[in-house]
């Protein structure tokens, strides 16, 4: 038990160092910079242009197919049993 605690104490600085290094990745410059995202921000790239229509079509498919999920939206009761 003592050896386990000693190992953990030794690993703690390494763990904290790793966290600092990893999280510092959040603040370094990303490889696609904000001013290079014009194409990504164009509405043709939006996957959420018609949220109500998408929800309705998800419902249409869910009530007639045996599977659902992993569509990126929160599931809900569909009253389709």
């Amino acid at each position: 038990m003592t050896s386990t605690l000693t190992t953990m104490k030794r690993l703690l600085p390494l763990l904290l160092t790793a966290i600092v290094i990893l999280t510092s990745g959040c603040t370094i410059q990303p490889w696609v910079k904000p001013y290079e995202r014009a194409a990504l921000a164009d509405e043709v790239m939006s996957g959420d242009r018609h949220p109500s229509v998408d929800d309705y079509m998800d419902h249409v498919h869910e009530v007639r197919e045996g599977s659902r999920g992993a569509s990126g939206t929160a599931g809900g009761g569909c009253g389709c049993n």
Partner: protein
Amino acid sequence: MKRSIVFAGLRRDRGTLKVLQRCAVCASAFFLYLISANAGVLPEDRAEVVGHIYQGGGVKVYGPTVLVRKKIGENIDLSVAGDEDFVSSASIDVVTAASPYKEVRKQWSPSVSYLHGKTTYSLSYLKSQEPDYLSNNGSFTISEDMFGDLTTVTLGFSRGWDHVRQHVKDDSGKDSFVDDFKENNELVSPRLDRRDYRIGLSQILTKKLIMSANYESAAQEGFLRNPYRRVRYGDANSSDIQYQPEIYPHTRTSNAVGLEARYYLDYRASIKLGYRYYTDTWGINSHTGDLEYVHPFGSRWLTEWSVRYYSQSKADFYADLFPYFNAQNFLARDRELATFNDISFHVGVTWKIPVSTKLSFATSLMYDRIQYNYKDFRDNRDVLVDGKLTALPPNQQPLYKYGANVFMLQGSLNY
């Protein structure tokens, strides 16, 4: 004297544990501080109304859908969505086992999102109500933008509570609803509990490519069958067929993973490719693929074209015809659990009208054509033979298939 505690079979020093816990809390706080250094954004304020009509397989569903979304300050977003479906059904299940019916399904869903730094916390509630089916659902989602906003990680959990009832007519012809269902002469609960766990990752890969991956695991426990539907049994060569109620397992666990990539084309258009794999403990495996192309014309017109293909294998306890009464522990003849595929084509056009720098209006017209092809579900409706409605033996009945049309007209206001 140092005191010790027992935890998960290990004896750990309490003082050291406290130090470790404090370090972990400090590290977590430092991590959250770093990734929350810059603020994220909430969706735009928006109001939209959609009128929709679905018609196919003897079923017609129409009604409106409304969504209103409004920010309060810079950190709170409120939204409410409502949906009303007017259903008239003469589907193959209905015309072969009951009478055509009409009913209304109402659904509403308020939600609130709170933005703190790069983290968005969302809480939503959904209620869907039909005369014979009540569904309540609560959902909590955390979404985190990180690594210079190139990556978004989303975690979600939903909990649902449903109540199933059956519409019956008593001896005097009066409508009533019952929920005292029996299976093998024993009462079973008419309630259904659902739990959904979701994790999603969205990643900007290049200046033109964004990809996402979603995983969802769902567990359902309770009354999972349709109280109206029956299975049939008998000799496939004979038209003397008998019926008995379906019997389903009371649990179902499913796993689904979805992948999506959207790419910007240089002449200002986009193409999206998506795939989803699904598997569950009932033996159903499905594959879904979709391809979408979005193309604008000028600054005010946007068109979208897509095709979606879906195929699934049958549930282990599904059969179009069972050989005899209670042929197995679980019995189903629900065509949603059969082997089938469907293919749908979607086309839509949007016209945008900017009103002012803050206000814009858009209207969209969309059409979907869906074709369903069943591989082991037969059309058991009577057919005309020599001018007379006649029941065919199951092995002479054609495989069932039908097409459906969906029209949607949307008006939206961004403000």
